[in-house]
């Protein structure tokens, strides 16, 4: 017995190093062959997008996206009025609720990347690629055919955009079923952002699933403006997800600061499917707002000091003086916390909030609104407060 083992060990000693060296090299060559065939396959449905016109957006950053509050800051919890010539200034001020880009990254105007979604000319890409608001968009297919493209609609929360070109018989991408994506499997990102006639390639693995509120696959393949909108593929050339910039805060550019850092995100098939019908109808998806302003004093908690009228919260009877206790079942301890629990919920979708009015807590389910649909801030408490039905703590609606 012992002798057998010794013989085996001896065999390893003698043949080990040289054999293992060649095997290692063969293994890496095999990797390269597998990558190559996957890339050649996926290059066929990876398109280059070029834009003309437009400009770098101004006012790209706002403390609303980072600060202790989101749904609008206030210095002292008091109405922000500066008397000037005896007139309150607030009426002149622009809407305090404004969608911002969430980053000071300066967007270049180089080419970008998209994926053929359907044979009849739909291209899915990232809304990041159109932040400059270009006047003309062209799409170049892998066989160098070029088309003028229409931007049908975009989802500014999931950072997706849908283009249409006047072409038939395109070869659409094949997608991996989201449930079968494994942590640790190879992930290859393709992009057309560096120019040239072939996609650029970065390789890593799937780092995590269900990131960003269950929306995204995380990868350590280097993602950057060179491949946002392009596919993250597996070793068979099928799409694991579409690469987009993302971070745990709102803003169309939020997450670009992670570029090339080994922290990248891609949206799998089910997240894309969930919105493509809406986008095909030309309906864009925007950041969702509750339309409330919080006190900045930490001891106040989530004390509401202003509510936009109209706004989802105002319509439900929430007024300055009320406090928000939880959102979507999560207890909140700061306004920032609230933003973090809502940054993936677009306008038009419901949120469950529990609000304390006086001695009672009530559950509400407002639909978030677009910033442009919010009215001016009401900062005075209601003199004749409406009293909603009390609900029990289990978040059930009253009969």
């Amino acid at each position, binding site marked *: 017995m012992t002798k057998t083992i010794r013989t085996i060990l001896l065999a390893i000693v003698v043949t080990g190093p040289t054999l293992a060296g060649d095997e290692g090299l063969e293994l890496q060559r095999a990797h390269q062959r597998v990558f190559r065939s996957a890339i050649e396959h996926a290059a066929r449905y990876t398109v280059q997008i070029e834009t003309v016109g437009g400009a770098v957006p101004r006012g790209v950053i706002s403390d609303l996206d980072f600060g202790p509050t989101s749904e609008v800051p206030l210095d002292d919890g008091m109405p922000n009025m500066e008397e000037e010539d005896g007139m309150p200034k607030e009426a002149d001020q622009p809407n305090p609720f404004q969608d911002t880009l969430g980053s000071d990254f300066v967007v270049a105007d180089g080419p970008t990347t998209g994926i053929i979604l359907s044979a009849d000319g739909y291209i899915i890409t990232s809304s990041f690629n159109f932040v400059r608001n270009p006047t003309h968009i062209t799409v170049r297919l892998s066989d160098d055919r070029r*088309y003028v493209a229409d931007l049908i609609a975009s989802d500014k929360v999931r950072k997706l955009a849908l283009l249409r070109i006047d072409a038939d018989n395109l070869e659409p991408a094949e997608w991996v079923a989201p449930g079968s994506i494994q942590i640790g499997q190879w992930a290859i990102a393709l992009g057309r952002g*560096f120019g040239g006639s072939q996609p650029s390639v970065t390789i890593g693995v799937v780092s995590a699933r269900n990131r960003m509120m269950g929306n995204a696959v995380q990868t350590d393949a280097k993602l950057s403006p060179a491949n946002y909108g392009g596919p993250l593929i597996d070793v068979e050339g099928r799409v694991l997800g579409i690469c987009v910039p993302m971070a745990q805060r709102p803003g169309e550019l939020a997450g670009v600061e992670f570029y090339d850092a080994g922290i990248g995100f891609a949206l799998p098939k089910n997240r894309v499917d969930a919105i493509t019908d809406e986008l095909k109808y030309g309906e864009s998806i925007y950041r969702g707002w509750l339309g409330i302003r919080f006190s900045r004093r930490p001891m106040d908690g989530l004390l509401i000091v202003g509510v936009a009228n109209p706004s989802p919260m105002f319509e439900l009877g929430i007024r300055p003086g009320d406090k928000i206790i939880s959102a979507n079942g999560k207890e909140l301890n700061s306004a920032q916390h609230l933003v973090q629990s809502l940054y993936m919920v677009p306008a038009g979708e419901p949120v469950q909030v529990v609000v304390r009015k006086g001695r009672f807590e009530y559950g509400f389910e407002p639909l978030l609104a677009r910033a442009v649909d919010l009215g001016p801030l009401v900062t005075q408490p209601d003199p004749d407060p409406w009293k909603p039905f009390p609900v029990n703590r289990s978040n059930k609606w009253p009969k």
Partner: protein
Amino acid sequence: MLIRSILLACVIAGPLFADGFEQAIDNVGTRTVRLYGLKAGLSAGYGSGTIVSDDGMVVTVMSLLLDSERLRAVTHDGNVYGAKLLTADDDLQLALLQLNPLPRYNARGERAPDPPSGPGAFQYFKPGDSKRLFPGEWVIAAGNPFKVAEGLEQVSVTRGVFSARTDLDAKRKARDFPYQGEVLVIDAITSTPGTPGGPLVDLEGNWVGIVGRLVISNRTHTNFNYAIPVEVVQQFIDRYRNPDSAATDLIAENNVEPYHGIKLFEMGYQKDLVYVERVKRGSPAHQARIRKDDLIVSINGRKIADIDAFHRVMRTKSPGDMIDVSVIRKNKLVNTTITLEEPR
């Protein structure tokens, strides 16, 4: 007895599993030098170089480091050499150095023996073939990022894949980067201080490029990880070795635009976009059916973003050249070919 055999096996067999990168890592480890010079202002005072001849010629990138009077190069075995600048090329942003032994003295003032020098003293890279790289192939880069390697320590090695081959369109410190030729884009992070100048090799250890200087890509506004292809580096070395036969293959940019007959819409609100205001009757553009109000979006497949870009491209063309022009007309893409004529 059994345990002793196992231990023995481990000792003799060493790496029981080899992952295939040994040759590549050995090559870059023995053929990369660490450079040290004066730290001045924003320059880092250190860098990397690649040995390209058996008598100690080293290629690196241009930098303020090379202005140091006492430029030093340290080889993989810890030997310190003086480095003399042989030549540098502003357009390629490459420099060629010669390593020479430095007289060194120990604490008692006795002269230490010189490290090996002269023909045959150095392990060096022969040029490989960067054109054979396919996107997705492994590459290894070496250098001394953040000068973490010191003394007898070897340079740092990083692994990634070859991403793409493209022309360089980049800025360095808000100014256009002079080198605009082809580069090898890689997905290993080499845009770190101290890495540029080091070699890039493929899986088999063949030398394919020199890690380029830190730049920001104009196309993406991101730090760019790239290498100058070995063919360009080799041309640069050959030009130094045979200065007479050197063919200057740089494209001379004319100052005169060949005649095309297009007048662009250069006033007004959207002056950046390349709209055609007028086409001269009988001109090359007229024969190519370019029309008023066409929006020119690309020439020879390259995007034309603004009027400056249009003139810049036109100045590189000569009479007789045929250029492929894409225009947007009534929301359709139209392609045509213009044959340029003598300027008039």
